């Protein structure tokens, strides 16, 4: 090929390219030009009854626990905050803030320990105060190791550093106002604006009344056998009046009016409510029957008095086994209302507190299931929301 021929060919190729380019430009000219952008951050709308907090323990790397903020109506993840190492979370009853109790070390897995109680703005998910705690109990997260007073002014932090005690945090001044020793007892079940009750090793309760920087502690007589049929830590409290339904491993329910002078009523049986025999406890460990079990195994809808309990068929000592059904019971009549079968066994159940309540469960893969708590129908699910969903918190709890 001569030089002249090469030149002509190159000219033809360039002309073709220019022509193609002009055609392309004409086609794009009809589309709007994308504008320059600024980075920003989403601000959430105020809290609604169906916006819930979901605790993820991330058990195989618990330093990386987190709390998800979920719009349960849309089945949408709205955001998340860090919740390091067997953390806990509690929400202001009016939805003005939520608090995460967490623990970190200055050099990751070593160095100085720091126990913290950051307060979060529920619309920006930013920290508004970052209180340093004297300590807190490091235990697989149990909801009642962290609780809040009805008016949202006191947060109660259960601690085992070095002995059983509760740190009372003033959420206005962001200071620990006092530490109440509760030897032989644990957990906090809040009542009123300045009181909580703890469960004790002897099968009784300790009632703590707070007055500024002072506390008065009273005790009930033991009412259950902690070795043969202890009550679950995740027994629900009705926030407005402090009524709590302590549920035992075997399925006995102890209605209890919490106060400085706590009253325990006659117990009733979940199984008898379903027309079955009472389930035996540790004295007959091989008997297979329907039993309560899981992690956060019960939830109460305050207004209706409907109690939701995860149930499974098993022997005694299967109290952490995932539920294959949810039993919905009326705490006034002690009657079983519905049995809701779970296609995916769950260790967690929660309900919202509005007039059209939603119910939540999970499974081994960390999927978050959203149910109509009135009809018992599954509405939607969020596949693999997290790894280990331990419990969910609804506004007003």
């Amino acid at each position, binding site marked *: 090929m001569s030089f002249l021929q090469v030149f002509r060919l190159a000219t033809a190729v360039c002309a073709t390219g220019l022509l193609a380019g002009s055609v392309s430009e004409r086609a794009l000219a009809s589309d709007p030009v994308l504008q320059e952008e600024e980075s920003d951050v989403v601000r959430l709308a105020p809290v609604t009854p169906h916006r819930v907090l979901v605790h993820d323990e991330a058990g195989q790397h618990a330093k990386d626990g987190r709390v998800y903020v979920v719009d349960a109506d849309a089945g949408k993840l709205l955001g998340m905050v860090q919740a390091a190492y067997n953390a806990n979370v509690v929400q202001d009853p009016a939805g003005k803030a939520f608090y995460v109790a967490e623990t970190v070390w200055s050099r990751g897995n070593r160095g100085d320990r720091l126990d913290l109680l950051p307060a979060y703005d529920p619309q920006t998910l930013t920290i508004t105060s970052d209180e340093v705690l004297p300590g807190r109990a*490091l235990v*697989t997260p149990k909801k009642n190791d962290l609780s809040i007073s009805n008016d949202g002014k006191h947060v109660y932090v259960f601690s*085992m550093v070095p002995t059983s005690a509760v740190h009372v945090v003033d959420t206005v001044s962001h200071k620990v106002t006092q530490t109440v020793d509760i030897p032989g007892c644990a957990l906090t079940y809040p009542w009123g604006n300045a009181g909580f009750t703890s*469960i004790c090793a002897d099968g009784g309760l300790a009632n703590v009344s707070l007055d500024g920087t002072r506390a008065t502690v009273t005790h009930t007589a033991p009412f259950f056998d902690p*070795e043969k049929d202890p009550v679950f830590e995740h027994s629900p409290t009705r926030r407005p009046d402090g009524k709590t339904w302590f549920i035992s491993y075997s399925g006995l329910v102890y209605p209890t009016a919490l106060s400085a002078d706590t009253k325990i009523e006659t117990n009733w049986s979940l199984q008898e409510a379903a027309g079955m025999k009472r389930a035996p406890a540790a004295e007959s*460990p091989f008997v297979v029957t329907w039993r309560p079990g899981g992690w956060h195994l019960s939830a109460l809808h305050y207004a209706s008095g409907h109690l939701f309990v995860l149930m499974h068929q098993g022997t005694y*000592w299967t109290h952490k086994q995932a539920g294959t059904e949810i039993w919905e019971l009326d705490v006034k009549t002690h009657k079983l209302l519905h049995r809701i079968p779970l296609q995916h066994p769950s260790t967690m159940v929660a309900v919202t507190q509005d007039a059209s309540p939603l119910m939540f469960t999970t499974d081994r893969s960390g999927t978050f299931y959203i149910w109509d708590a009135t009809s018992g129908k599954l509405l939607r699910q969020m596949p693999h929301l997290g790894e280990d969903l331990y419990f969910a918190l609804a506004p007003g709890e």
Partner: protein
Amino acid sequence: MLQSDKVDTASQRAGKHGGAVASGPLDRVMERLTRLMASHSSRRSFAGRASAWLTLGSLIPVLPVSRASAAPVKPASKPKAPTPFAASAQTTDPTACNYWRYCAIDGFLCAACGGGVHSCPPGTSPSPTSWIGTCFNPADGRSYLVAYRDCCGQDACSQPPCLGTEGDQPSYRPQANNDIIWCFGTGALLYNCSTSVIVGNAS
């Protein structure tokens, strides 16, 4: 039925070995003396009959009933497993959740994470504190006190977890609760895995 079996067996042994089964020197002397007298006297003689009685008398100590009572006490049948976990527990593989000592373990098995049944993996520290469970060993029919001591300082082991719950009580009974991070006194209370250390006989 078992009694009859014992009698039959003991009778066969007595018959097979004849008088050689006499239980003591005196028995043997008496037997030989009696046989000697019998062999040197008329079969109808008084001495013969008397010798027969003496022989019978000398053999009384070796009759089956006496033998059975003198035999070493046969071990009683092994106790039944007291709990459902114990009923299906195994004693050979400490990297599986149904190993007998894991009746109340909660978490990751150190035996599957670089350590052993009572050994922490390298790079971790054993907790000086723990809670105590009671597990039944199907191999010897005894129950043992087991300390579930955590190994600490590294984040959670990557292997599948196990959850034994027999005797597990809520955290207001810390001495019997498997949810507490038992890493007190080890520096950072980061939980890596759990060991199960025999600390006593509970039978």
